[in-house]
């Protein structure tokens, strides 16, 4: 079962945005999921207004304080307010997650559509490359990229993009291939339209649903991956407030100040649940089986 198995039930509608919007409207899960995500985005933007502490302000005398009115979620081992850090903590994850997902899915979609349309040797070459990247354990690829390039926002974005693009190419190409033989594509070709214009006008709108599901799904994986990377010391640089980094910093103090570890985990998990719900809902609305496919 390769990408070709991916079934697109129901004829793809015309109009990219409208398709996506209709899908979201028709699914309660997608609505709830996106609402959760939107809430996280709002909190991340408004974080400085929500508490009276600065996220990096450390007071050694108040280290490892429990829950109190002054510190609703306690303090960490450097005496920083945990709640403040959790509220600010989404910023890095959200930005990296959004950038890397959009980059990976965007690039993967263009390449996938292109090779589906072009076929022939280009298709073969690209797919061999895609296959060989997928054949290398993703963790190895990630390790290599971050070890070679160092840490920081852009490196993490690049690393996740590199790891995700091949999977997207495979999925989108499969979806596009089922569109290519259809009449209107053939007709467009007969009219002598240029390849890019066919790709833009005929192919993209018809794989929009697949791409949207892909986007939501990859975003949820990327969120986990970003946090894992931060947790491993490859993502956000301290003292940046970041969920993954917070878990790494506070995990040893779990019995002493459990909130310092639990709060960022809960924040991360709800964010990922939101993205997963959105992906679920979209997939269900369009009859795309998000689990029965390959090529992560």
């Amino acid at each position, binding site marked *: 079962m390769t990408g070709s198995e991916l079934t697109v039930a129901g004829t793809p509608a015309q109009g990219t945005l409208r398709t996506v919007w209709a899908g979201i409207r028709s699914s309660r899960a997608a609505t709830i999921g996106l609402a959760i995500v939107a809430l996280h985005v709002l909190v991340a933007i408004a974080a400085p207004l929500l508490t009276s502490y600065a996220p990096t302000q*450390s007071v*050694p005398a108040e*280290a*490892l*304080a*429990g829950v109190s009115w002054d510190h609703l979620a306690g303090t960490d*081992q*450097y005496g920083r307010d945990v709640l403040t850090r959790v509220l600010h903590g989404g910023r890095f994850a959200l930005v990296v997650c959004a950038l890397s997902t959009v980059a990976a899915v965007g690039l993967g979609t263009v390449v996938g559509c292109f090779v589906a349309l072009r076929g022939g040797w280009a298709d073969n070459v690209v797919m061999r490359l895609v296959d060989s990247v997928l054949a290398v354990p993703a963790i190895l690829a990630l*390790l290599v990229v*971050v*070890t070679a390039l*160092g*840490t*920081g926002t852009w490196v993490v974005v690049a690393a996740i993009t590199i790891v995700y693009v091949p999977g997207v190419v495979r999925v989108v190409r499969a979806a596009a291939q089922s569109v290519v033989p259809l009449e209107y594509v053939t007709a467009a070709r007969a009219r002598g339209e240029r390849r890019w214009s066919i790709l833009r006008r005929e192919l993209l709108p018809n794989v929009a649903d697949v791409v949207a599901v892909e986007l939501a799904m990859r975003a949820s994986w990327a969120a986990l991956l970003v946090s*894992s990377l931060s*947790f*491993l*010391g*490859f993502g*956000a*640089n*301290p*003292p940046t407030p970041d969920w993954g980094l917070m*878990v*790494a*910093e506070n*995990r*040893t*103090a*779990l*019995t*002493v*100040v459990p909130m310092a*570890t639990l709060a960022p985990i809960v924040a991360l998990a709800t964010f990922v649940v939101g993205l997963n719900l959105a992906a679920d809902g979209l997939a269900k609305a369009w009859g795309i089986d998000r689990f029965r496919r390959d090529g992560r």
Partner: protein
Amino acid sequence: MRRPAATGAPITRRSLLATGIGLAAGAMTGCSTAGPATTALPEQARAGSARAGGELRIARPPASNAETLDPASSLCAYEYLGALYNRLTRIDRDGQVVPDLAAEWDVTEDAMRWTFRIRDDVSFHDGRPCTAHDAVYTIRRLLDPDLASPQQGVLAPLMEPGGVTAADDRTLVIELATPNAELPSLFTGYNCYVVPDGSGDDIGVAGIGTGPFRLDSFTAAGRGRVVANDAYWEGRPTLDSIAFFSIADQQARTNALLADQVDLLSQTNLDFVTARVVNASDNATIARVRNGQWYTIPMLTTVEPFTDPDVRRAVKLAYDPQRVLDVAAQGAGDLGHDNPVPPDNPLWVDHALERDPDQARALLRAAGYDGLTVDMYTSSYDPVFTPMTLAFKDSVADAGITVNVRNASADSYYSQVWMQQPLMATYWYTGRPVDQLLNQIFRGGSSYNETAWADDTFDAILDDARREIDDDKRRTLYQDAQRYIVDHSGSITPMFADRLVGLSRDVVNYYEHGFEFDYLNIGLADHRGERS
């Protein structure tokens, strides 16, 4: 790297994943001591009567898959050395150089010719007596450039291989090429363990020494075992045997201790929070190695802006060592005041720059670096690096200095950041003899000179000290050198932190300081008799 090494830092292999993954398994150890942050940790390891026999289980970080039992090699498996071998000299609990295999020694007035008398009651594990010829062989190996021992850089400038001879079976004679009144202290290094004459080809797996334990089995980066040497010249060790397990991940090591799978974590400085968790558990506790960790912030003196001595001085005036000690080590340790010699060393001198951010700011302005902004590197290699970096960053802000913290990968921290980036957090084990410390880490051109500082005046002080055989005068010279480092060098030493060592509550008479570990007296408490 993952080793204690000449340089002193144990590494958590795989720490790159490691640091993360562990989520303090320990954290929940059945104890609900959610007390205040000041919950006291034990000041001292448990002393008392141990029962005779038993097996101690030690978890250690593997140096690498290429580890060897050859003490001279930079790839040596550190924990085994002290159990299997002896050196000519060692350092006692007061920091003095005292006899080990060399019973006594003597030097000529010009500090050029040393004579060591080797003990006559010592045998190797294979029964051969240990003689001056073995010592000659050992020292010549250390000088061999093809072996590239870490100690080679320390000893080779002082002597030629031909100058190291045995006058008879008991007498080792060393003719120096350059005067040195501190030579015996240089043989306390952990690469200087004495191996049998001609054993070079197989010492790495045979492990035949004169030490309190002899080798039973050894696997590089794996498990191994040593058993008591009944014929040991200082008397039989308390334990029957020691089993060594290599566990790369620091968190996994801690978990093994909490789950009672091992008794002692070697080369593992627990961060304060983990230490509390361990201490609160039923079967494990914490011992401190006082001032065991020498934390430094080297400013690379070959890179702008640290080429300017005024900038270096300004940074030293700007930061708050007390804040670093409080935040990074929760006050468990001593202030360093930028002096690399720890306060409990007999040669230590009390000399410090008074913190003065305003003067720092003025110095910077005069040097044309008003509002200096620098990158500073940290890593998950050691749990103290990041809090130390953050406390440093916060306190230098008072002088208008902006520090951008950069987190670097643990696995290449010492190959790509150390001695490459202008500002970073790092540490050494304390325990080098002062002469070796100053020459190895501060003399211009030394391979371990982490600030790349080269100052002829300073080097001349070291040369004078080495020539001086009067102990008091020599001490004064070493103290001058310390003052010179505080005032001029690129090295910042905010603190000497206590190493927090996790060990089972059953372990008694654990003693470790610098590179000395008491394998002879360490034992298990009376009540635990039945464990295999």
